């Protein structure tokens, strides 16, 4: 349990980073970033086999993570910096001219931890399929992780990749859906309903689990389960039930903070709800 407490503390700092980065930039996507903070914290600080100091874009000899939902960049950058890929100081440059921390992840300026650009939705699952194929060809045992959004799952390419991963038995591919039920224009169910997402992924040939994505114990347990099933010849989908805006009461459970920056007053309010555990950048 000590480990879970530690991860929760890191997640709190990551959430502070998200709020502060988006506030400083005056734009960005806090809602989904807050909602998925527990998932990426568990991954980067507990379950992923990675060595930030020796990171290479080709990912050889390590697990790889792809952020398909590129707008969750504040979260991605925070966990990368906090796990040692680059100085936390650099988080201040988010969305600023010349920064390696582009509005959506980019490889152009060589930010460690980012394998590919994302932002235009639906592409990262395909990219992770390619990475998983390459790992298999190299005889590697490492995992490939990818985070997609539920709104993103309205893109047809997601389902092309879903078929492909099952066809090619990519059982070391572990995908997460940030299943918060929200997208820019409102609730997913009222825009383009995904229906029974669990049944869909299962019918596409994936080994699938629904997880409370904001419960650190459940998230860690689910990740361990997913890793343990490598060898079942099926790709894994963890459907992470999350709250958009999790951790900040006025942002939680609504699509209104999908892509909006808090002002200074709102920022102060949000930060008062999130414990500073590792020191602000």
């Amino acid at each position: 349990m000590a480990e879970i407490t530690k991860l929760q503390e890191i997640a709190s700092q990551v959430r502070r980073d998200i709020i502060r980065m988006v506030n400083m930039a005056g734009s960005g996507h806090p809602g989904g970033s807050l909602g998925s903070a527990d998932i990426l914290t568990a991954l980067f600080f507990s379950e992923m086999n990675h060595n930030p100091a020796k990171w290479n874009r080709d990912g050889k000899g390590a697990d790889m993570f792809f952020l398909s939902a590129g707008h969750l960049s504040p979260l991605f950058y925070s966990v990368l910096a906090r796990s040692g890929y680059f100085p936390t100081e650099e988080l201040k440059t988010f969305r600023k001219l010349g920064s390696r921390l582009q509005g959506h992840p980019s490889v152009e300026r060589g930010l460690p931890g980012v394998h590919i650009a994302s932002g235009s939705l639906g592409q990262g699952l395909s990219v992770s399929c390619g990475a998983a194929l390459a790992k298999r060809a190299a005889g590697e045992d490492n995992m490939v992780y990818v985070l997609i959004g539920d709104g993103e799952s309205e893109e047809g390419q997601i389902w092309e990749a879903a078929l492909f991963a099952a066809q090619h038995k990519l059982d070391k591919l572990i995908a997460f859906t940030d299943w918060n039920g929200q997208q820019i224009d409102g609730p997913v169910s009222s825009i383009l309903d995904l229906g029974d997402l669990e049944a869909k992924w299962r019918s596409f040939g994936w080994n699938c689990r629904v997880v409370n994505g904001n419960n650190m114990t459940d998230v860690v347990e689910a990740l361990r389960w997913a890793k343990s099933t490598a060898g079942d010849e099926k790709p894994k989908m963890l459907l992470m039930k999350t709250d958009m805006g999790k951790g900040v009461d006025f942002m939680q459970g609504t699509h209104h903070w999908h892509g909006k920056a808090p002002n200074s007053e709102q920022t102060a309010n949000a930060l008062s709800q999130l414990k500073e555990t590792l020191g602000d950048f």
Partner: protein
Amino acid sequence: MKITEKFINTGNKDTRSGFGAGLLEVGRENADVMALCADLTGSLKMEAFAAEFPDRFIQCGIAEANMIGTSAGLALSGKIPYAGTFAGFATGRVYDQVRQSVAYSETNVKICASHAGITLGEDGATHQIMEDIGLMRMLPNLVVINPCDYNQTKAATIEIAKHHGPVYLRFGRPSVPNFTPADAKFEIGKAITLAQGRDVTIFATGHLVWEAIVAAGMLEDEGISVEVINIHTIKPLDKKAVLESAAKTGAVVTAEEHLIAGGMGELIAAFLAKELPTPTEFVAVDDLFGQSGEPAELLKEYKLSSINIADAVKRVIAKKIALSK
């Protein structure tokens, strides 16, 4: 020696078969080379590679967007993926995937596009694409190559593995004259002067290089001295070769199986407008979709044949003379 004696057709062959042969050869040379296809293995002539290297051939099904993304993932992991489909599907259908996951992300993906232009023939306009050069050359980081015959397509297919970065390789379906030397080295970005001339330069690419040679032969008989340059690499454009030849002849005809909009001719014209304004004629399709027909008929119908190139030469020489007065 007459240009038509210098370049001998050793027998008609399709450029896509040049791709298939090149893919097999580069696959033997380099174990990192992989091939992906979206249910068009036969059409792309990828069967030999798939048979010899089953573990390095990835059937993607009719899901081109995923094929491009998967290729990007393979490439960033150190593989050299050759992703093959028809040119229309390899460009317009997956433009955003090529833009974000390949060009912007600088992944070492070789996009191999068959059935480009109008000469795929009877399938009609849904399968003919004459916008692809424009679409692809607009993307930063992407190299755009359009070889002229079987031998050159084979050589280009082998050579692009050595270039670390995304490439769009464009070739076609019809059997066309095979006339470049089988042992010629392919140099990305280096235009090839096929004939020296004084009066006019024809910059041609792809299947129309042969048409340009035939046109030059006809014009030679009429006493017109024609320089013919094969622009097999459209991006990066060999600016030095273009500028030197335009300066020498003072008149330019461009020839390509593509729309004027976005094509090689427009690229050359924009470059010369800035560096050395030169009278120019375009042999290309002006804002039209294609239609069903036989390749040779279509070249005639859409004014892309040797006769049309020769006519354009006469028009541009008349312009040059008028301007000099």
